[in-house]
């Protein structure tokens, strides 16, 4: 809050009105609808519905397909988060070390940020295409009996690879700006105390990057949960047999393709709670535990 402010009047309401109205109509209303519908069971024609308390939750969340999707989502987001962070950190540290070509490296490593997930998905899809995809042929040539249309591990491999590829650049940008924010004097002092650059990195640089890393973890988990929708929709579409369904993709599938409103809404509400948990972690835990 500002020390100096304008006097009380109705003007501020005019300024916030556009945003608040849009939020009420397009955010709060649909979300409330989702919560309301999650307690309803509609008949097959959508003509009548009855209030069934938590039955939709029980039916969907304990269903095999939801548990499968939940399991895949956990493995998938852990892998995507860890791999894309590790790769980006390695590249950022190296890009921060070089003097020659530094800006060229920086540019060529970050521009993939601008590529939309479904575009990355289609590119990857074609690279793994059984007829024309060189990656598909290559993996089979080196003795991996690779078929992502039939094998669920191979399908998972494809979506993880594309999702990591798409996310490296964002992490790289943040890590690099984090590294550049570390005072030179700290690094010079550590050079006198410790010869091994490997140990210097883990004892000095990495702890100083902790706020960036934790922040990026939240961003990456959110990305793996939600934004990978476009990648999955243009590669495996949850196939084979729902093995690469994330929770978000399943909400979409059940709601639009399966027309199961109550079940899809119940899943949405569960996802809302997950986002809420993530946000609380982000604001409480991280802000306090990580030393700047």
């Amino acid at each position: 809050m500002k020390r100096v402010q304008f006097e009380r009047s109705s003007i501020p309401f005019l300024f916030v009105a556009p945003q608040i109205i849009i939020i009420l109509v397009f955010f709060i209303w649909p979300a409330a609808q989702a919560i309301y519908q999650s307690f309803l069971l509609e008949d097959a024609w959508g003509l009548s519905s009855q209030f069934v308390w938590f039955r939709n939750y029980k039916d969907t969340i304990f269903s095999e397909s939801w548990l499968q999707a939940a399991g895949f989502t956990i493995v998938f987001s852990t892998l995507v988060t860890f791999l894309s962070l590790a790769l980006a950190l390695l590249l950022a540290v190296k890009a921060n070390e070089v003097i020659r070509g530094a800006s060229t490296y920086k540019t060529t490593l970050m521009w993939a940020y601008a590529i939309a997930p479904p575009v990355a998905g289609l590119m990857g899809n074609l690279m793994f295409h059984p007829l024309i995809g060189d990656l598909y042929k290559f993996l089979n040539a080196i003795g991996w009996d690779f078929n992502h249309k039939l094998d669920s591990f191979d399908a998972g491999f494809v979506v993880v690879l594309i999702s990591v590829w798409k996310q490296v650049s964002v992490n790289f940008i943040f890590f690099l700006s984090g590294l550049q924010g570390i005072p030179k004097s700290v690094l010079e002092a550590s050079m006198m105390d410790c010869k091994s650059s490997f140990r210097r990195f883990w004892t000095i640089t990495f702890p100083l990057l902790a706020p960036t890393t934790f922040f990026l973890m939240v961003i990456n988990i959110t990305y793996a949960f939600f934004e990978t929708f476009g990648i999955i929709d243009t590669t495996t579409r949850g196939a084979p047999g729902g093995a690469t369904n994330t929770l978000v993709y399943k909400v979409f599938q059940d709601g639009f393709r399966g027309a199961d409103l109550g079940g899809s809404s119940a899943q949405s509400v569960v996802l809302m709670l997950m986002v809420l948990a993530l946000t609380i972690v982000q604001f409480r835990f991280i802000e306090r535990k990580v030393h700047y």
Partner: protein
Amino acid sequence: MKQWNWRLISTHAILIVGVIFMSLPVWVAFATSTHSAEHILRNGLQFWPGSELLKTYNEVLFVDGGVMKSVLGTTMLKNSLILGFGFAIGKVIVSMLAAYAIVYFRFKLAVPLFWIIFMTLLLPLEVRIIPSYEVMASLGLLDTHFGLIVPLIASATGTFFFRQFFRSVPDELLEAARLDGATAWGFFIDILVPLSKTMIAAILIIMFVVGWNQYLWPLIMTTKEENYTLVIGIKQIYQILAEGGELPQYQKAFALTILATLPPVLVVLVFQNWFVKGLVESEK
């Protein structure tokens, strides 16, 4: 001396591998898009450009039925530009106004309103897909620019970004402006907006990319081909490839990925410094 050399070489080697990993797929996509479908089917992906560049892109962009059933590539390009610019500009206006009210005015509802804005972070589109569609359908907003753009611009990121920035503006400015008899609107337009120029530029660039790359929302909101953006065209071409047919037009699929990639990538490359600044600051 020798050890130092090895270190430098390995550093460059790692970076070069990274650059290849990040760039090669896009290069291959471009190179392959310049060959004929027969050639691709026979020889797989291509690493060097072929002779069909003009033919492919001409068909995708300007020929009726060249890539989609009834929509031209240029129409999709236009729709993408409208979405990208509309989203970026709308977002800046709405979030600047809201941030201004929250930072510069003392009013009773400031705190609850702030929390309503904050709540948007908890409600990403993905958790309210189906009811959002129903709301839009009942308001008759499907297949309209308004329905496509406006619901996207209300999320909190932009507002938080400007809130942060306004708080760092010295209080003396407002004191001085008030002594000169500035109104609330006058202070905003004559002092705050010019002061925020770099911030506005940075956020415009980020938001253009974000808007251009929207997928799920336009997917729900557009039912007619004439309203497709390039990114939505990606889904259609996926469908066409999946269905098979006599000879899948792989080169056009690749051309579409390149067309959907080029404008946001150019924006990021040209305005690189602003872009990085906006990204790093807005996520804080």
